[in-house]
């Protein structure tokens, strides 16, 4: 409970707390005086302990709150706080001087401290002297080093760690100097000149190679202007450093008295802080390189011109190569090889040109060899010559055929002309014949009309005859009937006479006279019978004849009628014929015109065929321009004829031309024509 009350003190008024305590004590149990004293001591102890802990934590200005105490406790707290303040003030003064020294300000000095504290004054002065001495030594060393003098060493005779420090410093410098010499030796070992200058273009270093080139000595030139190199670019705008400043890292120069060309590559030297503190120039001997480059450039230019000429078909160029100096022998060899190839290409093109000239002059019997397996040009030329040969042959053949054909046409035309005039004569004859025919047809028509009349009359007469005939027949038939009766009578009479004879015979002597009569009667009867029979057969025959005649006459009638009709038809046909004849006459007139046209056409054709013949002759002459091997005509592909393996590769060989084309039959025809 009490702990809580004390901790609350900073937040509440003491009096109020007291009152609360009193109220509490009054409410619970009465407090004794001894207990109160113990409580105050405990409170004090706790406050001191708390202050100590704060001081220990670094809060040197922390104090004990004396208002929480009364009486003697309060005073005790007051002195405790004052005593602490006294020490702290002195310490803060020392700290102020120390912090000035620490920051490098040695202008202040500590006011004199009381009593034993005077030692603080002594030690601070010592510190000041030592540090300032150290600074002076370092300044001396750095100045010397800056000037390239690494031989200076610090005075290490000072006390304590400072002396130690300077010793170590000196040792570091020794090591550093060794390293510098090592690097110098390394740079000296480079075979090409290296020059190092500061930002004012004063030399800070040149290596041995530089000494050799310039004839200068390093020890003499350090700190001097680099223009003392004495190159042709020094003090000009082509100076390596001037070029570098313009952004060009490379420049070239010549050294007077030396027949060499140099290249200089310049670069800035940059400090660890990024500042440009100088320049380094590295020099290389580029004489060989440049000479090669120049030589190569010149040769390449010449080669380019030659290749251009080759491309343009100009083969007059040379293929020589410029003699080389000591630097360019190897390069020259390459150009010699290239030009040799160029020479071969030139030769090949010349060969092809020669070949083309031969073909142009009509010689198709040239030999074309492929120069390699992949030589498409020669293969193509070979094909071309083969095709040209085929064409030339077929043209020659065709020309001959056209020539003979035109001859046939000419003959045919003459025949045609002759035929046409014959036709014209024939047509005239036809025309007069047609007129005659027309007259004949008219007469025919008249005759036909007459005939028709006669036929009609004949038909009538025939009909009448038929009637008469049938009447005759019926009369005959009636006669025959009558004859039959006579015949029957005769027969009966005969029979009676026979029977009378039999009777007479049977009557014997008495019947003799009767028998004679009977026999006589019988004879008469027989005669009658025979006559009747004769008449009968005659009449029957007559009837037959009359009937046949009647039938025939009847048969004639329709014939005559038909004739009459036919004759009428003939009459009509005659009319049609007359029309037809008129048409034929017109056609014949047209035919006459056509024949006239044909005759003039035939004449034109004759002259045309003459022209054709002339053209064919010319064509023949032109086609003969191509010299081909006619004995190869039957060969479909003429390549192998020309590809003779024994002849030289890539060479063009002229074959013997067959001079006399007249040996061929067609040509004979042509010539005769």
């Amino acid at each position, binding site marked *: 409970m009490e702990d809580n009350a004390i901790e609350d003190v900073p937040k509440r008024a003491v009096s109020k707390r007291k009152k609360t305590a009193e109220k509490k004590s009054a409410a619970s149990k009465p407090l004794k005086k001894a207990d109160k004293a113990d409580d105050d001591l405990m409170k004090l102890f706790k406050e001191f302990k708390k202050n100590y802990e704060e001081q220990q934590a670094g809060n040197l200005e922390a104090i004990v709150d004396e208002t929480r105490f009364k009486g003697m406790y309060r005073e005790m707290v007051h002195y405790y706080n004052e005593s602490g303040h006294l020490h702290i003030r002195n310490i803060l003064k020392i700290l102020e001087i120390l912090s000035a020294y620490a920051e490098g300000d040695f202008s202040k000095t500590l006011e004199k401290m009381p009593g034993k504290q005077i030692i603080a004054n002594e030690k601070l002065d010592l510190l000041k002297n030592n540090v300032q001495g150290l600074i002076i030594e370092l300044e001396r060393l750095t100045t010397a080093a800056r000037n390239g003098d690494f031989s200076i060493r610090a005075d290490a005779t000072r006390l304590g760690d400072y002396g130690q420090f300077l010793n170590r410093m000196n040792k570091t410098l020794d090591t550093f100097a060794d390293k510098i010499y090592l690097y110098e030796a390394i740079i000296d070992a480079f075979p090409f000149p290296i020059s190092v200058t500061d930002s004012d273009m004063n030399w800070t270093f040149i290596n041995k190679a530089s000494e050799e080139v310039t004839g200068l000595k390093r020890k003499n030139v350090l700190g001097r202007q680099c223009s003392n190199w004495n190159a042709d670019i020094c003090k000009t705008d082509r100076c390596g450093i001037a070029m570098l400043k313009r952004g060009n890292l490379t420049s070239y120069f010549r050294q007077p008295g030396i027949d060499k060309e140099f290249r200089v590559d310049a670069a800035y030297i940059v400090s660890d802080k990024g500042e440009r503190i100088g320049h380094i120039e590295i020099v290389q001997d580029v004489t060989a390189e440049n000479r090669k480059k120049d030589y190569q450039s010149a040769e390449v230019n010449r080669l380019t011109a030659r290749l251009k000429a080759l491309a343009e078909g100009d083969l007059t160029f040379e293929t020589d190569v410029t003699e080389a100096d000591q630097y360019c022998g190897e390069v020259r060899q390459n150009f010699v090889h290239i030009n040799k190839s160029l020479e071969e290409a030139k030769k090949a093109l010349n060969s092809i040109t020669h070949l083309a000239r031969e073909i142009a002059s009509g010689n198709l019997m040239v030999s074309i060899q492929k120069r390699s397996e992949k030589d498409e040009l020669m293969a193509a030329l070979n094909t071309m010559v083969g095709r040209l040969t085929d064409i030339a042959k077929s043209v020659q053949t065709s020309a001959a055929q056209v020539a003979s054909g035109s001859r046939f046409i000419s003959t045919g035309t003459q025949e045609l002309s002759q035929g046409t005039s014959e036709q014209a004569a024939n047509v005239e004859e036809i025309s007069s014949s047609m007129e005659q025919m027309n007259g004949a047809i008219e007469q025919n028509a008249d005759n036909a009309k007459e005939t028709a009349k006669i036929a009609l009359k004949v038909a009538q007469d025939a009909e009448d005859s038929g009637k008469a005939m049938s009447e005759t027949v019926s009369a005959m038939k009636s006669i025959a009937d009558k004859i039959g009766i006579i015949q*029957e009578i005769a*027969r009966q009479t005969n029979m009676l006479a*026979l029977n009378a*004879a*039999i009777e007479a*015979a*049977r009557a*014997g002597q008495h019947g003799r006279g009767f028998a004679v009569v009977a026999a006589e009667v019988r004879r008469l009867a027989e005669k009658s019978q025979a006559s009747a029979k004769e008449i009968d057969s005659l009449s029957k025959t007559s009837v037959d004849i009359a009937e046949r005649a009647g039938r025939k006459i009847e048969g004639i009638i329709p014939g005559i009628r038909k004739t009459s009709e036919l004759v009428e038809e003939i009459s009509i046909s005659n009319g049609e014929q007359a029309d037809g004849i008129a048409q034929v006459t017109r056609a014949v007139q047209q035919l006459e015109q056509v024949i006239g046209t044909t005759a003039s056409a035939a004449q034109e054709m004759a002259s045309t065929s003459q022209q054709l013949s002339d053209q064919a002759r010319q064509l023949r002459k032109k086609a003969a321009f191509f010299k081909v091997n006619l004995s190869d005509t039957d060969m479909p592909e003429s390549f192998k004829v020309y590809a003779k393996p024994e002849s030289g590769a890539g060479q063009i060989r002229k074959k013997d031309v067959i001079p006399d084309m007249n040996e061929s039959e067609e040509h004979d025809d042509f010539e005769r024509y």
Partner: protein
Amino acid sequence: MNDTKNQYLTFQVGDDVFALEIDKVHEILTYTRITRVPRMPKFLKGVINLRGHIVPVTDLRHKLGMVPAELTSDTCIVITETAIQEESVIVGILTDSVREVINLEPEQIFLPPKVGIRINPEFIKRIGKHENLIMILDIDRILAFEEI
């Protein structure tokens, strides 16, 4: 009677001319219709009515082995009288035509040859020689050969 013996009636059957003694002949009839009688012998053609008498008619062609002939206007029936078994019988003979009554003297009559004649010689009594050869028929035999 002697006169009658020399007289013959000639008639024609086919191409041949036959004769009958005139006293065997009664009369000649023009052909009249012959009535066929059932069950009559084949050589009989039938019967005719001769003025009230029934007279059988024989076909001489059949008897003589000839083919039957067509009827013509000359076809006649010769009425003959023959004796069969002592009895006189009237029979008609069908002939193609009757010719005439002729006289044949005995010297004109010959015996028929045994061979060389188409007709059965038994029916031929004699051969008469007139303008042609005439076969004189034995009518009794012909009619008696088979019973009527």
